[in-house]
């Protein structure tokens, strides 16, 4: 109650208003100039901007007497951050084509991450009995969120029809052709169908250069550490030739996402085992 009583009112309200104003501004930018130019923020620019942002946060944390940092570290900022995620979820959940690169979304998620990073800086070694849980959940979320956010432009995705001859002609999701540094060739294809005609199982034997691999739904082939090949669908040409459609996804940041997700799952387990902090409800704060 102490912080509530001493700081009652002004600066928290001021902070919420400022954030609100920035988000409102981002809506205007979105309407005038369209969505955030994600494509520009490829490696190494994204790393550079991320490093600058982290340095700024570290500096702000040093000067945490300042009201801006105090606001970013406040409970109000936590509620605001989570409220933003809820609003983003509901908004995107109502859209047919989720506009996940809209300016308000980009700005809001930067605020959420800033708050999260500062909270981690403050709490990672002085969180008493729940230190591990705090670290696992908050750092895990920060990694998972950060990898998706800062690594978005480095994620590439192509589609490719794979015929019974070697080819390296793939297409971006916008339909632009792109040559792969290796060839794919369809060797064999098996479909099992249920009585009503819906496929119950399909798999393709594909040559990746000289290596024979089996692709199934849910079982992609990891060509490199960052690139995976997925079996998406199958089709037939007018001549009756059957071919497979594969998707190639290159996501260099995926291991950071996976690390964040695993930390967060471990944190969730501690959340279940430890439960709420004792005495918090029985005794007045």
């Amino acid at each position: 109650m102490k912080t509530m009583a001493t700081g009652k009112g002004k600066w928290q309200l001021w902070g919420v208003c400022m954030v609100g104003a920035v988000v409102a501004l981002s809506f205007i930018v979105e309407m005038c100039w369209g969505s955030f130019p994600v494509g520009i923020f490829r490696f190494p620019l994204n790393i550079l901007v991320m490093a600058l942002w982290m340095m700024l946060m570290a500096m702000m944390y040093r000067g945490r007497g300042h009201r801006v940092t105090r606001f970013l570290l406040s409970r109000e900022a936590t509620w605001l951050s989570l409220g933003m995620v809820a609003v983003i979820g509901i908004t995107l959940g109502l859209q047919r084509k989720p506009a996940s690169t809209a300016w308000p979304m980009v700005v809001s998620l930067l605020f959420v991450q800033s708050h999260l990073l500062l909270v981690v800086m403050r709490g990672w070694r002085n969180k008493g009995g729940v230190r591990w849980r705090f670290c696992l959940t908050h750092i895990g979320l920060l990694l998972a969120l950060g990898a998706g956010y800062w690594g978005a432009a480095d994620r590439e995705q192509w589609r490719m029809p794979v015929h019974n001859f070697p080819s390296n002609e793939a297409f971006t999701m916008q339909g632009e052709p792109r040559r792969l540094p290796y060839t794919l060739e369809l060797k064999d294809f098996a479909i099992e169908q249920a009585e009503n005609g819906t496929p119950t199982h399909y798999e393709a034997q594909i040559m990746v250069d000289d290596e024979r691999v089996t692709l199934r739904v849910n079982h992609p082939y990891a060509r490199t550490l960052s690139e995976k090949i997925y079996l998406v669908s199958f089709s037939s040409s007018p001549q009756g030739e059957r071919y497979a459609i594969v998707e190639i996804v290159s996501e260099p940041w995926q291991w950071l996402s996976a690390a964040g997700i695993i930390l967060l799952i471990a944190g969730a387990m501690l959340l279940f085992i430890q439960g709420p902090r004792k005495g918090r409800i029985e005794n007045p704060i």
Partner: protein
Amino acid sequence: MAWNIFPLWAGIVMLIAATAATWASIKKERSTVAIVTMLIAILGMGGFIAMLWATLGRPPMRTMGETRLWYSFFILVAGLFTYARWKYRWIMLFSTVLAGVFIIINIARPEIHDQTLMPALQSVWFVPHVSIYMFSYSLLGCATLLSVVALVRKSTDMDRAIERLLYAGLAFLTTGMLTGALWAKEAWGAYWSWDAKEAWAAATWALYLIAIHLAPSVMNTKRRGLYHTVILLGFVALQMCWYGINYLPSAATSVHSY
């Protein structure tokens, strides 16, 4: 074949559960008889799921009707757990009613015709993802029921139980969501793509997180109601995420429509 006997089977199970719940609600002290009786009902429900699993030859988690079956099962488990742990004597009555609602929906609208399991769902993640989610939904369902009582009665008796349920429910909700993310990477190539279901899952998750982060500031103040209200909002979002989105236009482009 298993579904043909479902109305009779579920009717008997619900009768046993209702007896246990009523017995618990009229007893001042924690009743072992009620606990054992409820356990029998839960075993009966579990037995039906096991039989369905065996006759279908695949995990019964494919259709909405099948997820409702799991929900009915887990909500009885969560209700029994809450009663045994915190002796809150009304909770089993509520959880039985909730289980009954979903059983009645299943009898009235059995979406059980499709026997096949599409390739996208043939994954090791399928069973953990769905069952963890259904279990978390049932824990959060119990937390919601207690929150409604807390709001109506303006009492603080249930707050400890609500917070425990919320923590456990959120832990499973988080795990369910993240097993989904790991699965999505294997199936579709992206951990997260703001698909309609994912978006509502994020909203649900964030709302429960607000409740948890709100607790220290409001629990012992006049604004306690805010905590319970956010839990209710979370449960509304959860319903949207589970089946509400099927009625939204955004479902048309969702990869989660089963």
